[in-house]
């Protein structure tokens, strides 16, 4: 049987469609695909609501269920998991209405907003790491910014080999520190060229080639971001003295103005006494 390209493409698409007979879901359309599986928009007939339905290989069933147990505001909630007649595993999850992070960034949000988003991502990562789950493919395309500003980290990877080149480190074996590299790459992606040196240094430290030279975990990375936001020196950058002075004056401007005013008054009184 000779197949032309159009028929072949059609067959590849339809033969991959999940057979949802016997489930409560009705397939609507494909909304994305990655190394781990394909995501479809579907309708839950019982609850009359739209859901995202992710279909993955049966070999990934165990890890998919492990991910489904992660309950965190930054991780898309899983409603149900099940097995299709062909053995593949599906899980129904919240269909997030919002913008993918790379699209969201096109709207040029403020630095403060970018850091808020990054911190939410880091918190979700930290939570998952503490439960033995690593992402393996952290990138802007896998983060959604919801309509209420909520952040969802999606597509938790379960592949033995995964990662998107621009956001994947040189590590041969992917572990938590590989996620830290990707988090640094995300920060770098979210910063403008004119970003503060301290932030660029944080990204660079997270992206060190040697995993041991990176932040040891997500909380350490987040702590450095927090130090920057509070006007403190960051661990990733030993800043020059003039920069430290400038940061000190900026952070203690009110106190310095008061001191200057006090000194000025004393100076004036001293001269008045002489006269």
């Amino acid at each position, binding site marked *: 049987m000779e*197949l032309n390209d159009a028929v072949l493409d059609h*067959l590849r698409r*339809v*033969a991959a469609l999940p057979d949802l007979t*016997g489930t409560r879901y009705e397939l609507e359309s494909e909304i994305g695909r990655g190394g781990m599986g394909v995501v479809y928009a579907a309708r839950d007939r019982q609850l009359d609501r739209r859901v995202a339905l992710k279909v993955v290989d049966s070999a990934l069933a165990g890890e998919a269920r492990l991910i489904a147990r992660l309950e965190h505001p930054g991780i898309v909630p899983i409603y149900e998991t099940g097995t299709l*007649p*062909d*053995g593949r595993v599906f899980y129904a999850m919240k269909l997030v209405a919002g913008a993918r992070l790379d699209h969201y960034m096109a709207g040029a949000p403020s630095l403060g907003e970018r850091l808020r988003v990054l911190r939410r991502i880091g918190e979700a990562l930290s939570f998952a790491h503490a439960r033995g789950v690593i992402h393996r493919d952290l990138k802007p395309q896998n983060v959604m910014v919801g309509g209420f500003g909520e952040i969802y980290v999606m597509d938790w990877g379960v592949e033995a080999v995964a990662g998107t080149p621009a956001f994947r480190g040189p590590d041969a074996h992917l572990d938590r520190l590989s996620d830290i590299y990707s988090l640094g790459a995300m920060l770098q992606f979210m910063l403008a060229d004119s970003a503060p040196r301290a932030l660029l240094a944080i990204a660079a430290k997270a992206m060190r080639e040697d995993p041991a030279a990176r932040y040891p975990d997500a909380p350490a990375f987040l702590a450095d971001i927090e130090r920057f936001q509070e006007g403190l020196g960051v661990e990733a950058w030993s800043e020059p003295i003039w920069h430290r002075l400038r940061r000190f004056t900026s952070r203690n401007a009110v106190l310095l103005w008061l001191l200057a005013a006090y000194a000025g008054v004393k100076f004036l009184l001293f001269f008045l006494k002489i006269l």
Partner: protein
Amino acid sequence: MLKRSALDPDTTMGGPHGQFPSTQLSLLEAAGSGDTLPNEALERVSALYWKPVYRFIRVKFRKNNEDAKDLTQSFFAAALQRDLFARFDPAKASFRTYLRMAVERFAASQHASASRQKRGGGVEFEPVEEYVAAAESPEEVFEREWQRQLFALALDDLRAHCEARGKQLQFEIFEAYDLADGDRPSYAELAARHGVAEAAVTNYLAWARRMLRQFVTERLRGVTAGERDLRGEMRRVWS
């Protein structure tokens, strides 16, 4: 050959859960402890790869139809003599990649040898009009033909399965809709044409597609070296 009796029986709503039973040995299993692959495994390999290899040689080395056929035939013969398939190491690459690289080396050496025999040593390329306009690289052509042949074989399996099980109607509906070259009939038209309910058309199509997927998986299993290689190839097919 596929053990058709072991295939997934007809499924009703929801169908039996669990994986499609494996009926084909992987390449490594087929090789067993011996040094060479049994004929059955070799047949599976050549059934799937003959056309991709032929097309690859035509595009990469610009051979005419007959030369490309001869070269393809020579490659498979040489592969058997030299136990090429048995020397495949799944830790280094997928079998598909290994085979393509082996073809490339073999054809390049044959091509160079033929060129040396020509007076003056000049290389003469045959025009291959059908590929001149193609933007695809030889590697992409190989990949595409591999997918095409994989589905063609799986469709043969599906057709035979339907005939053996008295499911010609399901296959006819599937053929009319999913194999249509051009405008597809609506489900309602198909239902009227075959005198069944529209819901039955939906179910028959879902069943046939699921079976096709299973036959594709089985065909892949026969030419891959274990689960990891199989998963990788499945990703190539479905992504």
